[in-house]
């Protein structure tokens, strides 16, 4: 599991945010586009592409994309 690929998959769940804004240290909940819909899309993407079941509480325990990546990796 590669961080760069995870960031790309994460970014694909957004429509208006520039790709350059998605970095390991991006605090994703602070993105203008962040809302319930991308949140559900990210959880669904993680389930489908990484076979890891996370929920919104798990997600709330992370701030950055790197932290979310680490969490997914730890559950694989």
């Amino acid at each position, binding site marked *: 599991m590669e961080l760069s690929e995870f960031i790309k998959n994460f970014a694909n769940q957004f429509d208006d945010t520039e790709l350059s804004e998605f970095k390991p240290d991006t605090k994703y909940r602070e993105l203008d586009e962040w*809302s*319930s*819909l991308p*949140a*559900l899309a990210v959880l669904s993407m993680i389930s489908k592409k990484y076979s890891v079941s996370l*929920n*919104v509480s798990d*997600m709330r325990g992370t701030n950055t994309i790197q932290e979310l990546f680490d969490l997914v990796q730890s559950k694989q």
Partner: protein
Amino acid sequence: MNKKLPADFHLTKYGLDVCLVKEDDAEFILELRTDPKLGQFLHATDNSVDNQKTWIKEYKKREDQGLDYYFIYKKDDSPIGVNRIYGIDTKNKVATGGSWICKFGLPVELSILTLIIMRDIMFDEFDLEYDRFDVRKLNKKVQKTHLIFGAKEIGEDDLNYYYELYRTDYFLNRQEIIKMLNIK
């Protein structure tokens, strides 16, 4: 004849209270629908509380006929969002779910739950087989959300994609989504 919900319909589910919209809700609905970001993919709304009240009053006639229902969702007595089930056709077991709009900044669970509750009403209360709806082509986030619920694209025109969501697909995916929302 379509099954009818009572005028004082009230449901408490997943910590949300669901009722039919009343004239008193006009200001809240207008606030949502006229927000440039929230309402960008909805039909244009007249920017007047009185006109919205008149619209709701007229809408009650359709609710009284069992054709359409306009729901408002409240958390701890504060309104958080609305959506509609309309064009209910119990003979062909189909209706349209739409006009879904929620306040900004809600916890992730809440806005998704308003969609889940609407579909639960559609499939459980009215025993329908599918939801037939359209989404503006530019409204990509909502398209993704419906696909996660199992909707299938059945067509398109210049403005919209057209979808159907069958109850079997909905309930299959709903279970997974409820887990993602960490709803007990």
